[in-house]
């Protein structure tokens, strides 16, 4: 056995030596999605967002491209510890940075649109744990899963002439997506907040909160403003100054801080926890976990928010994602968008541009 295999007996070993690495390579290619059934990647969702935005806007977030950095603090009152071991909900004062934004891929779009107004936050605990969240001003989302999200982006491509989607494509899409129709009906009727400061921001998805006894509950949260809600006149959105919402928040914050209460809403038995399209209705156990104070806003060029990814699955120990498929898709798509814009280099923000113009005029 110690002599090399004779040439005549080498065929078997040679086949084996070729076959084992080849089999591994094929399995690897299949795992990577290079061969085999087509799966929905972060790139596919980012591409759909770029398509809907009339092409990529290099250097910017693929969704919610227009934004303003915020900073302040979260003062936890300790009540949240009834639901979770997350250190950030223990009584204390925690620094917060984040971002206000409006939906869409165009970083310089006007604010007079009936679209999501959003608040994204990173709350940091001294032990290094972070709670990142991206919230919208509607309690429900138009789609329940990433494939529907992509289909909606494709169907709702605005016609450059009318600014409206192709009615035929949209009708075909809505026929198989009653949840999107329900969302459209909701947002058509709902108040469109006239300030970032007076909107309630919702967690969109449900999350799993685990308390010190190991009990797990599903929770959706919302940031409820101290400022009373007032709406924009939806009939006059076209005449709204381009950066109205952002300018209003800049001047409002110069006068004083804005506050919100973090409300943790515990699911009732039977509440849908894996579909962001379904609202939780009726009375719920709600815990006021503390106060968010935002005392500073800055353009993205100067603030700390631009080069961060508000991935809603970056959560402190004691809070975990639910089975909502949107959460995994948001995490992956945000990551893809983050990497794309990192490679492109940042561009000026709408508010930063205004600031430079003001400074130049001085």
């Amino acid at each position: 056995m110690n002599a090399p295999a004779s040439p005549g007996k080498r065929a078997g070993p040679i086949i084996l030596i070729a076959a084992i690495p080849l089999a591994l390579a094929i399995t690897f290619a299949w795992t990577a999605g290079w061969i085999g059934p087509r799966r929905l990647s972060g790139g596919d969702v980012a591409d759909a967002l770029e398509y809907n935005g009339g092409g990529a806007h290099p250097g910017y977030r693929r969704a919610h491209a227009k934004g303003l950095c915020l900073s302040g603090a979260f003062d936890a009152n300790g009540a949240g510890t009834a639901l979770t071991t997350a250190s950030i909900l223990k009584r204390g004062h925690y620094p917060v940075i984040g971002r206000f934004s409006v939906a869409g891929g165009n970083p310089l779009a006007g604010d007079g649109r009936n679209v999501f107004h959003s608040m994204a936050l990173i709350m940091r605990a001294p032990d290094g744990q972070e709670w990142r969240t991206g919230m919208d001003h509607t309690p429900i989302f138009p789609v329940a899963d990433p494939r529907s999200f992509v289909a909606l982006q494709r169907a709702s491509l605005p016609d450059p002439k009318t600014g409206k989607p192709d009615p035929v494509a949209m009708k075909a899409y809505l026929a198989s997506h009653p949840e999107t129709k329900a969302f459209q009906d909701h947002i058509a009727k709902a108040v469109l907040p006239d300030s970032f400061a007076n909107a309630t921001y919702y967690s969109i998805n449900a999350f799993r909160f685990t308390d010190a006894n190991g009990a797990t509950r599903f929770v959706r949260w919302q940031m409820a403003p101290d400022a009373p809600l007032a709406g924009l006149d939806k009939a006059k959105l076209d005449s709204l100054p381009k950066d109205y919402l952002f300018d209003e928040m800049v001047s409002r914050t110069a006068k004083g801080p804005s506050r919100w209460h973090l409300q943790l809403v515990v699911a009732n038995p039977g509440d849908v926890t894996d579909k962001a399209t379904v609202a939780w209705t009726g009375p719920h156990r709600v815990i006021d976990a503390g106060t968010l104070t935002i005392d500073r806003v800055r353009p993205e060029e100067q603030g700390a928010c631009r080069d961060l990814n508000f991935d809603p699955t970056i959560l402190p120990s004691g809070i975990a994602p639910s089975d909502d498929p949107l959460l995994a898709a948001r995490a992956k798509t945000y990551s893809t968008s983050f990497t794309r814009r990192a490679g492109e280099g940042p561009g000026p923000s709408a508010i930063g541009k205004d600031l430079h113009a003001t400074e130049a005029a001085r």
Partner: protein
Amino acid sequence: MTRTHFSPVLRVIHWTMALLILAMLFIGVGMVSTTGPAYPELLLLHRPIGIAILVLALLRLAIRLATGAPPLPADLPRPQRLAAKGSHVLLYAAMIAMPLIGWGLLSAGGYPIVVTKTVVLPPILPHDLALYFVLRTLHTLVAIAFFALILLHLAAALMHGLIRRDGVLQSMTFGRPKPGDPVSSESSRIDEQ
């Protein structure tokens, strides 16, 4: 007497790491391919395994430097000897570099480096988006090169074990040498230590 095997600790670490690294490469390319639930599930595994690989690789390097390696067969042609040495250096480099690049890209991306529920590591690089992009790209490219290198390493090991039957494969395995097995025929080996 010329040694025929790597140190037993090194052999244990080799096979443990072989499993971990292969699993890690599949987890990595699998998770980034999908927006499905596999993405967060695999990401939870990716970081602790990555740090485990880094710790094992550093430990292994120290043991390897301290205990050396059995000599290659004397009749192995020079180009093959160079390929063997060079590929082993590259394998060690990849084992150590991949977790560090991963740790570095999270640092440069401004992410918390959450290894397990309670273990959060400090950043090793400044928060810098351009640097993040370079490291994120490198993480993929080095992973693919690493996998290709592992396939070559595997093919070479099989070639030694099945065709040359020169004891090189057995130097990393645990089987008891049978009489007449190449691992006991020292005459054909030279000691390079």
